[in-house]
């Protein structure tokens, strides 16, 4: 079952309040997305920890309903 971009965005924003989330549907198939997540909560965290925080926000969907989400994270707008 695929997730739509709005659901993914909402989950991430609920899990990381104040985050800026940009989602792109890479193939238009509702199954392969790329997300850019910018959140001050990432400050001082390693890249692995930042991605783990996003995965936590997705509450187990990553790797299940959500097959492919290419993730890029940043603590601040560059």
């Amino acid at each position, binding site marked *: 079952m695929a997730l739509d971009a709005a659901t993914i965005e909402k989950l991430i924003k609920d899990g990381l309040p104040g985050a800026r989330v940009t989602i792109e549907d890479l193939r238009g198939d509702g199954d392969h997305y790329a997300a850019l997540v910018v959140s001050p909560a990432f400050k001082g965290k390693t*890249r*692995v920890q930042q991605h783990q925080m996003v995965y936590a926000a997705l509450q187990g969907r*990553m790797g299940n309903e959500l097959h492919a989400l290419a993730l890029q994270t940043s603590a601040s707008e560059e």
Partner: protein
Amino acid sequence: MTTDATVTDRIKQDIADNTVVLFMKGTPVFPQCGFSARVVQILTQLGVKFKGIDVLADPAIRQGVKEFSNWPTIPQLYVKGEFVGGCDIVSEMYENGELKQVFVDKGVATRT
């Protein structure tokens, strides 16, 4: 679903016994997933020797490594016992030169 201790021990052993370990779908010669293939390609490009572990051959390892690393997807790259990341992070680090530095810092031979 929790992973029993023997599976965790096997994962720890693989990581301890091999300097560079890639948990992947398929084998380095025949990757079964684009993301795994991408990381194999990067490691090959850098001339890094690694041990590929095919999680498709063992569902217990497939689930176990996700819990062990607290990481929901495959591939997963370990260097000297440390989790480096999945396909996105490894790709990003390869492109900005950080990945090569990780190998250099940890004393792993790369192509010069």
